[in-house]
């Protein structure tokens, strides 16, 4: 063990903020983090073993018990469900002779679910040993089963299994002609610091991660902090189900994203940046490392950038499977080698972020847009869009349409236009805008527009046609939040699970009118009292559908005068088994009065 771990430690150093990368390497060698490894790492990094255990038990992709030599995960996003995920997964389980959630007795393979893997435009999708598998179907699964049984290393599997497409259907202002590496920085040095910041301000650019905070203001606040050690963080956690535009930006426009980060560094005075890349995008890691290396070679990163005295470099840090790590302060905790628990605010990251130093955290798309604005000028961008939402927004479109993929629109575009462009049929049930944490709108709201003034979005756009069931959709989203709650605060930790139980009670047909009222009360509580954005939005799917489709809930309610909260007969199952009888007298009828 020591002989494997020592070189890993030598590679990353003994600072405790390197805990996640170290654990990732150990996990990929041993398919879990053995107890002995925990002791070794605790000693080397001089941290309590409890910090390591708590980190392992927090992240979905770290395990304290062995996973298969081939660890298969299948994405549980609603879009994967719509593409037949459940059938496929049962098929996979039967072909591999392994139960879902388990390790096969020979240790060769394990199979489990994972939250949305960011491949909603090419699902059903999965991961094998961390690498994305797209377009799963029965023939592909048959081939995978064969490869596994023959013990063929994943590196030798056919490359088309791992093909991740960009699917860009409508490039706009930003996607259509990316800048040449270095151009934004040259423009920045030519115009000077103040002028560049003014251009960003004039552009009206607001954060593309969802909350929409003005980017120029964030950069200015950070630069004005007295503390001079500052950091730039690019949030590539992209965990919101239905979002995958950051994946495409990093796959094809990485230079420009890195340039945006460097631009920010030059304005706020940072020497170190991080790209926090979600674990599901491991397939991009080597490619991005190469691009960083190229940029160092061409003087766009490292010491004395463009001979202007700017020192800045970027390190890539991989996430380990936790949606909450997209929340900026949880992301910072994760960068510091801890569990991703959102911090108390204030202080905000711009004044006390990474290592409690001033830190700018921005979305991938924000940096991408900022670099082009630095080159083209603020007005160029501000001329497009609406009054409070300037410029364009990149959407990740998936669900019931013929061309799922990436689209770039000026803010202010109507939902109707979007539906038309991506080939959505006319029998629309509704559209989830901004992912589960956003808003579910009904078919009669398609005149509404994409804009912070109307429907704000981080980019997720999922379309549902009339064949879909509202409650199935809401159930998927509600289960997602319960699974992803970090558990820090009571209203979210307990509340999201209560929401799940209460919703399941209703969807399974055991609810009464009072249960819907209780569900709504619970929604308000979780929304109003939770500590961070996850809890504050976790009830949105229920609230927005209760408002629009009350009848879908009503239809599932029991129509009886007394209202039992559970199935009386089913609850006697254990007693029947113990008494070893199953005759009619051992059963209870649940009387219904109509």
């Amino acid at each position: 063990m020591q002989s494997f771990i020592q070189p890993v430690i030598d590679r990353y150093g003994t600072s405790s903020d390197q805990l996640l990368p170290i654990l990732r390497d150990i996990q990929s060698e041993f398919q879990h983090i053995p107890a002995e490894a925990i002791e070794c790492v605790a000693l080397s990094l001089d941290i309590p073993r409890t910090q390591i255990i708590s980190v392992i038990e927090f992240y979905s992709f770290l395990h304290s018990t062995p996973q298969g030599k081939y660890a298969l995960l299948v994405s549980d996003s609603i879009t994967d469900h719509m593409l037949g995920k459940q059938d496929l997964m049962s098929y996979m389980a039967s072909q591999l002779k392994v139960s879902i959630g388990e390790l096969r007795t020979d240790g060769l393979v394990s199979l489990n679910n994972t939250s949305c893997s960011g491949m909603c435009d090419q699902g059903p999708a999965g991961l094998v040993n961390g690498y994305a598998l797209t377009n799963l179907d029965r023939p592909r699964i048959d081939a995978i089963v064969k490869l596994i049984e023959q013990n063929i290393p994943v590196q030798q599997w056919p490359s088309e299994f791992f093909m991740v497409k960009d699917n860009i259907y409508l490039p706009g202002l930003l996607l259509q002609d990316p800048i040449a590496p270095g151009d934004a920085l040259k423009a920045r040095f030519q115009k000077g610091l103040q002028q560049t910041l003014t251009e960003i301000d004039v552009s009206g650019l607001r954060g593309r991660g969802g909350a929409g905070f003005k980017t120029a203001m964030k950069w200015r606040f950070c630069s004005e902090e007295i503390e001079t050690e500052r950091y730039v963080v690019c949030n590539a956690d992209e965990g919101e189900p239905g979002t995958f535009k950051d994946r495409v930006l990093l796959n094809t426009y990485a230079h420009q994203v890195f340039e945006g980060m460097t631009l920010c560094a030059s304005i706020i005075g940072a020497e170190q940046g991080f790209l926090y890349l979600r674990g599901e995008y491991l397939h991009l890691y080597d490619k991005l490392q190469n691009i960083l290396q190229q940029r160092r070679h061409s003087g766009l990163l490292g010491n004395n950038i463009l001979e202007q005295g700017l020192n800045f470099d970027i390190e890539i840090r991989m996430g380990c499977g936790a949606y909450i790590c997209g929340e900026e302060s949880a992301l910072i905790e994760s960068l510091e080698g801890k569990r991703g628990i959102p911090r108390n605010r204030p202080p905000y990251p711009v004044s006390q972020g990474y290592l409690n130093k001033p830190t700018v955290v921005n979305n991938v798309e924000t940096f991408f847009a900022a670099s082009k604005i630095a080159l083209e000028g603020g007005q160029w961008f501000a001329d497009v869009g609406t009054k409070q939402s300037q410029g364009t927004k990149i959407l990740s479109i998936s669900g019931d349409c013929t061309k799922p993929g990436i689209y770039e629109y000026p803010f202010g575009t109507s939902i109707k236009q979007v539906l038309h462009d991506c080939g959505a049929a006319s029998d629309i049930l509704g559209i989830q805008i901004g992912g589960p944490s956003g808003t579910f709108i009904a078919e009669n709201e398609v005149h509404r527009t994409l804009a912070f003034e109307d429907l704000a979005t981080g980019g997720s756009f999922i379309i549902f046609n009339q064949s879909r069931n509202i409650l199935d959709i809401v159930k998927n989203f509600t289960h997602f939040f319960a699974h992803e709650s970090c558990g820090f605060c009571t209203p979210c930790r307990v509340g999201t699970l209560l929401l799940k139980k209460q919703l399941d009670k209703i969807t399974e047909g055991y609810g009464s009118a009072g249960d819907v009222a209780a569900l709504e009360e619970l929604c308000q509580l979780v929304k109003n009292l939770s500590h961070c954005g996850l809890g504050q939005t976790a009830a949105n799917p229920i609230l927005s559908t209760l408002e629009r489709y009350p009848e879908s809930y009503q239809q599932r309610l029991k129509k009886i005068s007394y209202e039992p909260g559970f199935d009386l007969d089913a609850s006697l199952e254990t007693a029947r088994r113990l008494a070893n009888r199953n005759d009619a007298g051992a059963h209870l009828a649940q009387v219904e009065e109509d």
Partner: protein
Amino acid sequence: MSKTITIDGKEIPYEDGQTIMDAAIAADIYIPHLCHDPDYEPHGSCKLCTVNVNGRNCSACTFPALEGQNIINQSADLEQDRKRITQMLFVEGNHFCPSCEKTGDCQLQGVAYYLDMHDNHFPHFFANREMDASHPDILIDHNRCIFCNLCVRASQEKDHKNVFAISGRGMNKHLIVNSITGKLKDSNIHINDHAAHICPTGAILIKRTGYKVPIGERTYDKQKIDAVALAKENKHHGR
């Protein structure tokens, strides 16, 4: 002139660096809380101290007091919300008060009395949590842990030991002990550690002391939690 904030219409002074909770305690105003103890770094996780500050909900224990704040602490809505949060804590663990050694001295129970909580409202989780009775002097009944993090903070900040940590995510959250076996007996905790005495519930208990004070004569049998908390926490600050 000193700076002031307003809580439920009453103007009270505060100093820079104080949280709303600090200022309230100093002014003898009780804001219900479980994860907070003025001797430790604020945590902000139980959310019982939620108050409404100029229209927004905030945790009083972590939110700084600032000029111009108009704070609502007592309202029908907030009391209902706090009752619901307390009920959540009850159904999440397994709290059989009559059989608990801490009954009458337990802050969770004290808060429940204070909030007029008569039932658990929500369906129980019936979590399967184990007990750690391995240590000769100290017992952990995980069924009663509410993840307030006070034992973690006490062990780190006062005992300089790191005996406890919170692990897991979401509903799988649980308390772990820093020893090779994970058992308390193999850790370096000592009966005189602050961490062994800070637990607001009956999760960490000192063995063979449970019934020294009879039931009926215990802290919250005699006094409401607001009076107890204010007396204790104010004294701490030497006011």
